């Protein structure tokens, strides 16, 4: 008998440990659920951490209103299956009540508007810990973020004043009004996520698999035709066989040309790819070298 775990089982154990730690030490945690593969895996890990009891915290979705319909259906189905509460904080409501302002023009997105919406939801529901599905391999600012990422009264991240994090000892002490963002899958890579989805037979929304879609090309990305984006000069719609590597708003998430219609084919594709998922498919991370760091400082996921 060899006392060794596969890499997926070791990553899983670490994530479960983190989630139980949060459930034990915080009054009012919630799991941020976007409907993307990372938050889906995180939800599956939460299911494992507390089995046979129900997950002891609600799901929180920051709803921009610009979602893929498949993803919203998936979200509703999962919360029902697990019997846990789904809290939806809507960017539209935040815009209507004046907390957030919509961008205008053909490049308008609701990416930044998620920040005030999220911070408002945290205040309203008095969340003291929020699980996020961010991974350190995604982006260079994230590579330096703690598993327990401390946020002040304004929800801000201060990269220079991060608490040292050693062994598997996490410091969750906060004062009233502060909170911790917790990233239980920090050490997973995109490939790990896909291997886990295959290994555990985790259900994911259809848009991750190859399908036909009406798209247009902008900045080297294939964006989907939707009611929220207008074409600019020289752009035109065409049909393409695509799939999504990440799931964000329809306005900023690019599709990749792909015939991968099974998880196994996706794994082969991810293993061979030479571009990161965010670099290839996310307009929100392309604006500057420090785009992610700047948004995180303001309270982004």
């Amino acid at each position: 008998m060899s006392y060794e775990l596969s890499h997926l089982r070791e990553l899983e154990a670490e994530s479960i440990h983190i989630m139980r730690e949060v459930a034990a030490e915080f009054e009012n945690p919630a799991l941020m659920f976007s409907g993307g593969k990372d938050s889906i895996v995180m939800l599956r890990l939460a299911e494992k951490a507390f089995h046979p009891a129900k997950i002891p915290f609600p799901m929180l979705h920051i709803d921009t209103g610009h979602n893929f319909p498949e993803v919203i259906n998936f979200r509703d189905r999962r919360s029902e299956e697990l019997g846990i509460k789904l809290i939806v904080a809507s960017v539209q409501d935040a815009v209507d009540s004046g907390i957030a302002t919509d961008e205008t023009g053909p490049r308008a997105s609701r990416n930044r508007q998620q920040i005030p919406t999220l911070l408002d939801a945290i205040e309203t529901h008095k969340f003291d810990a929020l699980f996020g599905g961010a991974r350190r391999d995604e982006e260079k600012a994230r590579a330096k973020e703690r598993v327990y990422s401390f946020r002040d009264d304004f929800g801000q991240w201060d990269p220079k004043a991060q608490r040292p994090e050693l062994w598997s000892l996490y410091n969750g002490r906060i004062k009233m009004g502060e909170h911790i963002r917790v990233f239980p899958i920090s050490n997973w890579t995109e490939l790990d996520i896909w291997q886990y989805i295959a290994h555990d037979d985790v259900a994911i929304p259809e848009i991750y698999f190859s399908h036909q879609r009406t798209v247009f090309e902008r900045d080297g990305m294939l964006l989907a035709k939707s009611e929220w984006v207008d074409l600019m000069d020289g752009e035109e719609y065409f049909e393409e066989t695509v799939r999504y590597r990440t799931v964000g708003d329809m306005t900023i998430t690019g599709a990749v040309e792909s015939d991968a219609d099974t998880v196994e084919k996706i794994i082969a594709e991810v293993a061979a790819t030479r571009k990161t998922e965010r670099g290839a498919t996310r307009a929100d991370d392309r604006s500057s070298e420090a785009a992610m760091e700047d948004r995180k400082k303001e309270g982004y996921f």
Partner: protein
Amino acid sequence: MSEILRFATAGSVDDGKSTLIGRLLYDSKAIFEDQLESTAKASEKRGMEMDLSLLTDGLRAEREQGITIDVAYRYFATPKRKFIIADTPGHIQYTRNMVTGASTADVALILIDARNGVIEQSRRHSFIASLLRIPHIVVCVNKMDLVDYSEETFDEVREEFREFAMRLDVPDLSFIPVSALAGDNVVDKSTNMDWYDGPTLLSHLETLHTASDRNMVDVRFPVQYVIRPMNDEYHDYRGYAGTVAGGVLKPGDDVVVLPSGFESTIKSIDTLEGPVDEAFAPMAVTVRLNDEIDISRGDMICRPNNQPIVSQDIDAMVCWMDETQSLSPRKKYSIKHTTRAGRVMIKDINYRLDINTLHRDEEATEISLNEIGRISFRSTLPLFVDEYRRNRETGSFVLIDEATNSTVAAGMILGESAG
């Protein structure tokens, strides 16, 4: 063989650490085109050729100042293993970051410039690696291309390092002559050093045996969370969730629960996939016992004939991590040890260590930022501890300032205080 290998590197810009990591990542295809492009762009903006350190230096302040401030975690995989790199700055003012990176590492990668031999920084990194009980140290004698790939130079550096390492506690030490820049012996075997018949760095990391590093003897199960579904299907279910910190647990085993001392036997070890026949570190499972005992978070399940030290008076080595205050006797802090939380008072500073010379200053009255020393403290409630060298999980703790909530110290337990 364990599929995940965590290794820590420490170093400053000019010792070639970034180039070495860059090469490992690039040659194992873990660097992507868009990352390379954005690094090339950023390098160009600074009037430089490709600067691989910009790949790892993720924060704006780091790029602006051209230094690594914090621990960066990097990932790559080969068909044999998944690697997690804790990449830390090497300068003495970042000792706390090195300690942080070292706390979870299986392997410490120490870089030595073949032209300079063992310098103060290499000694410091090696000491931290041994203090944090990193089981394997791999010394890369780098820039071999600049010493004409000389076997004699390599041997000299190796002997110099060995002599120094005899004063440390290093279970496994190996040496590899490399040129990170030229690629010799990093991923591909060098054709310039026929005299070296050992493995390349990557192949050494891929095959390093880490199974015996974990404690499989002393059963330690800190209870993290009590699972009580309280629904019709699992009406009387009461499970103790936690991560195995040592030993192997099996259904039927006799166990004792600390601090109560009540004994029972393991009824089952549960996971969502169903019960398992045994659990070992670092598995996260749920244990059920055959008797109804009052157990809560912070309790410890172990074997009656093999129990940890139960004590309120502990001796430990600490690394101080807070810039706003120092550690001194009579001060009080919160402690987090396994899943147990309590308060401690510092009783005594035994000595402060000069981490460059290993000289012990027994007159020291405080331990400040980035300093390491031996202390004794008293805790308000008994802790269930093992010597850190015997178990990194039950032998480690952090101290937290109760006013600022900052993590101020990392501690490694030596044992119960004498007298």
